């Protein structure tokens, strides 16, 4: 009996002490941000434009950001978050990354042996890398290392390749690519792409790469109106009005290709 009494007395005393401390020193946390944080996917990919999932959750809780910017969130989660915030669900258009370069070892020339850090930005700062084309993929895999989903592979022929089924379109690779070869395009319209990034004139391009766009405009003629845009010497797909897949057959350089 006495043991129970003793325990109760000590327990009450301790509870009293905690109560006093809470009363005089208690802080209020934001329960909304905490709940949101638990719902976040936790990939910390940064695709939303914030430093990580927690940061984004805080921003949403304080009304500084809208839900729907997260590329790797399932629709279910998004719905839950919207309910918590009491707003209408709106999700951005799903996107996919495309490496706009055909410059693998078979197509582009190698002008020197690069010796140094295995990183694209580093290689580019040393004489612009060792590939002949100064606009193409350097193939050292900075994008692959940055990808939080393992969606980018560096082919043995030294060019990056995105696996669209794994890609969530977060855009991390776009921000680390020093050559800006990787582009984020609407997933629905990404069936056909121009795999070249060089704005140079055709003869200059041809000297260094056998797979680059020469600006011959054949595709523009074959495709429907306003489906292929030509900017200087470089064709590009109008992703708002994508051409049919058959248009790839006219490209003499095999530079306008179906997504692989």
């Amino acid at each position, binding site marked *: 009996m006495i043991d129970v009494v003793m325990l109760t007395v000590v327990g009450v005393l301790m509870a009293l002490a905690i109560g006093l401390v809470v009363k005089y020193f208690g802080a209020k946390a934001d329960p909304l941000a905490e709940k949101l944080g638990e719902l976040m996917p936790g990939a910390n990919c940064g695709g939303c434009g914030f430093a990580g999932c927690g940061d984004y959750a805080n921003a949403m809780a304080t009304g500084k950001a809208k839900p729907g910017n997260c590329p790797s969130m399932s629709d279910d989660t998004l719905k839950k978050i919207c309910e918590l915030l009491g707003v209408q669900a709106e999700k951005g258009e799903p996107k996919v990354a495309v490496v706009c370069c055909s410059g693998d070892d078979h197509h582009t020339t190698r002008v020197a042996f690069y*010796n140094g*850090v295995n990183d694209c930005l580093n290689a*580019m*700062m*040393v*004489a*612009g890398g060792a590939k002949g084309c100064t606009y193409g993929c350097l193939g050292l895999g900075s994008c692959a*290392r940055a990808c939080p989903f393992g969606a980018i592979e560096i082919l043995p022929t030294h060019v990056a390749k995105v696996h669209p089924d794994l890609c969530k379109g977060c855009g991390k690779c776009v921000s680390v690519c020093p050559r800006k070869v990787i582009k984020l395009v609407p997933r629905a319209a990404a069936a056909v792409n121009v795999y070249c990034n060089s704005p140079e004139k055709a003869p200059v391009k041809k000297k260094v790469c056998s797979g680059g766009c020469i600006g011959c405009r054949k595709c523009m003629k074959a495709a429907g109106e306003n489906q292929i845009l030509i900017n200087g010497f470089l064709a590009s797909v109008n992703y708002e009005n994508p051409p049919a897949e058959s248009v790839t057959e006219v490209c003499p350089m095999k530079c306008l290709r179906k997504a692989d």
Partner: protein
Amino acid sequence: MITQIRFYGGIHPSEGKVSNKEDIINAPLQELYTVPLQQHIGAPAKMVVQKGDHVLRGQLLGEPGGFVSAAVHSPTSGTVKDVTTCLGPAGATLPAVVIESDGEDKAADPLPPFENWQDADPAALKARVGEAGIVGMGGATFPTFVKLSPPPNVKIDTIILDGVECEPCLTADHRLMLETPEKIVKGAQIIGRILGVKRIIIAIELNKPDAIETMTKAAEGTGVEVAPLVVRYPQGAEKQLIYALTGRKVPSGGLPAAVGCVVSNVGTTAAIYEAVCLGKPLYERVTTVTGTPVVKPGNYRFRVGTLYRTALELCGGVSEDPAKIISGGPMMGMAVYSLDIPVMKGTSGILLLSRDELVQYSPSACLRCGRCNDVCPMSMMPGILSAQIEHQKFELAEKWHVMDCIECGSCAYICPAGRPLVQHMRRAKAVVNAKKRAAAAAAAAAAKK
């Protein structure tokens, strides 16, 4: 006599200055010149000629494209054959004008020379430096006009002429000091006039005793001092030079002006003299072509736009195939893979390395020997920094002062593990700068809203 203060760190690479007895040779006229419009740090010059135009030597090709920018002039008379791009030594593609020489080398009317620069308006003198397109010829290619325009609240009291040439192999500044000392001294006095400064010091390393003697003689009675300095790389780095001569430390992230100094390369100074007293814009410079494979290493006065290929032909080609071609010196120069790169205002040397001299960087781990620590003239910790950068911890690297790196290469020179330390630093600096720019842009966008 100026007492020299020893700066922390530094190394002693082999000097290899084989061409220091070779007189400067004026390179013969070429048929084609590829003149890049961006030979300086800052905005590229805006082209003022068109394809097919006839131009004269010294005629303006491009005017400054901003405050931090510089004018570009034609190296000879002829027609503008093409407006195109060319490869720069850093691998970037630069806008360029190709001039086809007409063989007459007719000079355009010179800018009106200042007869009495001693009494001329400093602002006019400074404007001339800008008009003549003068940039720092030691390699940094910072527009000199900007350098000579310190913010109004800064008081400059010392001008330091950098004749140190601490880069191994290069001898261009050395020969220039031997052959045209009076131009350098007068140029220095012009800078003094522009900035209203009396104290002018010419710094020369002790491995050039003949230059010290010549410059001392030329400076007699002018009040310009000559300071012989101990041979130690990087004695010519701006911050270390100022510290060695004045004991002042340029604050982290600051410019020499913050401690009341302006540092100018001797080549730049000679160019300032020519621009002011002869009215000649900057379209040629002295460049050292050297290296073991080069048949006849020497110092040449090249017109801007001469291709490296031409430069090498003038030196009799090579005796063996080089393993590396470097634009600049061996410590801070840039390796290039093409000879179709033009000599620019900042090209202090073209260096070829043979296969035996080639050192390959290796991806091995840091041994933590601490030698990089001992030699770093900025007393940073390159070993720890490089490991942080390898693991993409750029924010941590910024905390460990990676932005103070002057990329002198002392750490990578000494590293027994052969790690590409300087390259790591460059990457971190590029990443941090990009982040800062992005933050600034975001802040500007937010302010607009």
